[in-house]
């Protein structure tokens, strides 16, 4: 195929745009990392832009020498593990029968699920239900139960289940498996890709969430790491509270926010490149109309 001059110009222009997009996407991360490893004098003088100035890892040493950060991290891990187990199981169990066209009552159940995508209780009624009526305050359940099943995820799984070949289930039926056996031994093993996608959706969602915890979790020792991070960022936490000695305080005050942000986003950024294809897959399955 011949490459015309205008095509070359276009490709060059396109490469330029892409480079700019990549630069602007990554720059905030680069800046945070650079700042978190710089000296306070350099930070306050606005000298940091692309790389650490007067390199020091003191802030990280101080943050990581206290158990606080690990405790909040641990809380988040617990919430993510329990929440994901509940959420993915419940979503699969609900989506399976909805994927069966022969079930006549689905005519009613599918709109019942879909409607919740377009209308919801809103902040206050949800808050009253969870905090006052069911009194889930200060427990893990307030974080993992109210959002366990989302209509979007149900439709996603339902679409995937519908795409599985019917013959396998039919032959399993001939072999004497009942509906529960078919679901556990045939359908679920075939659904690993969508389950992986769903697990990642839920894990990232819980990892990043802070708002529900700010509503329902009063005891600070039960906070997820994202909520703790919010406090670090918003309230200019006192360096001694983090565990800095008096001569370290100015250094910590200058870089604690960026260091905490780096530490909190690290797990997501590290696993992200390896799992992003599952997210994209999930989005595409979901976009096929249920």
């Amino acid at each position, binding site marked *: 195929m011949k490459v015309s001059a205008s*095509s070359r110009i*276009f*490709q060059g222009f*396109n490469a330029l*745009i*892409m480079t700019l*997009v*990549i630069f*602007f*996407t990554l720059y*905030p991360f680069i*800046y*945070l990392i650079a700042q978190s490893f710089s000296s306070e004098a350099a*930070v306050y003088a*606005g000298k940091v*832009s692309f790389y650490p100035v007067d390199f020091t890892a003191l802030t990280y040493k101080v943050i990581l020498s206290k158990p606080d950060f690990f405790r909040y991290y641990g809380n988040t891990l617990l919430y993510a593990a329990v929440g994901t187990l509940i959420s993915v199981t*419940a979503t699969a*169990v*609900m989506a399976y*029968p*909805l994927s*069966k066209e*022969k*079930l*006549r*009552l689905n005519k009613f159940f599918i709109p*019942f699920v879909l409607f919740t995508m377009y209308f*919801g*209780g*809103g*902040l*206050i*009624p949800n*808050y*009253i239900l969870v905090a006052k*009526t069911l009194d889930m305050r200060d427990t893990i359940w307030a974080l993992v*139960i*109210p959002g366990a*099943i989302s209509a979007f995820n149900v439709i996603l799984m339902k679409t995937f289940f519908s795409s599985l070949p019917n013959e396998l289930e039919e032959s399993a039926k001939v072999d004497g498996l*009942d*509906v529960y056996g078919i679901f556990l031994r045939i359908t679920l093993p075939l659904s690993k890709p969508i389950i992986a996608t769903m697990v990642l959706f839920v894990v990232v969602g819980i*990892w*990043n969430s*802070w*708002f529900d915890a700010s509503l329902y979790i009063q005891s600070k020792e039960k906070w997820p790491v*994202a909520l703790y*991070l*919010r406090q670090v*960022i*918003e309230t200019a936490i006192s360096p001694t509270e983090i565990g800095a000695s008096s001569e370290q305080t100015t250094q910590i005050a200058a870089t604690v*926010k*960026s260091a905490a*942000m780096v530490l*909190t*986003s690290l797990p*997501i950024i590290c696993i*992200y490149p390896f799992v*992003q294809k599952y997210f994209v897959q999930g*989005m595409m399955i979901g*976009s096929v109309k249920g």
Partner: protein
Amino acid sequence: MEGSSKVFDVSPLWKHVRKEWKLYSFLVLPIIYFLIFKYAPMIGNVIAFRKYRGGPNFLGAEWVGLQYFKMFMKDPTFWRAFWNNIFLSASYLIVRFPLTLIFALLINEIRRLKLKKFVQTVSYLPHFISMVILAGMVKEMLAASGPINALLGKFGIEPISFISLPEWFPSIYISSGIWQGLGWGTILYLAAMTGINTELYEAARIDGASRFRLAWHVTIPGILPTIMTLLILDIGGIMGSNFEKVLLLYNPLTYETADVISTYVYRMGITGGNFSFATAVGLFEGVIGLILVTMANTISKKTTKSSLW
């Protein structure tokens, strides 16, 4: 039913349920869950018309009619939040929608597959970052000693305290949204583009169509249903806003341009304890949202034959 290959189950309903009870049994717990955690809060909206006196009774104590609606309709702070909300959502939509489409078209033009994958991977990344971190980043980037002010300083501009100036809030809201969502927003377009028949491109190329004309006459018509669906969703969501982001980025100094309906509801209800009042505002927003998405869907169905339901 003659001529139809489908076998219709015409047995009475109870016989059908009895035959398929094992499959239906899967739905029992999830349906109870939906009733409690999705539908009960919807019904809980009645406290917009009833006085909620605290405690577990989420349906409120006594009817008060439209009292709370009249109250917020008279509150200039509500109207400020209302117009801020529409202005922020609409301007964000106007900026983001074409940019996302253009970015998707440009990604689609990248010939080297590895480069294409790399651009996609990098540009999706911000979507996975917690809103807390996004807000923290914005504040660090815009700080007095941060890189943006350092850059402005090179041109002799005095440091600007962006975060506490109301006139800057819409730009911060829009640009941080673009930063976080531009790449991710292209996924459905790119998926739709791979579905376009390659023969259409071949035929147009033989006719000597330029790259621009190919995009205009083949790619865009090919992804039009996707464009319309996303546009419907976006228009339906115009009464919504990025609640968490506004909550993390605004402050009393910027309420004038930054306060939106959801943050107003949050302050009135959760912070102020005026539950019934805040519910009335939230219900107003929810109903308008539902009406908007229904209207957008109907219009789209009539004009382009693509719709959500």
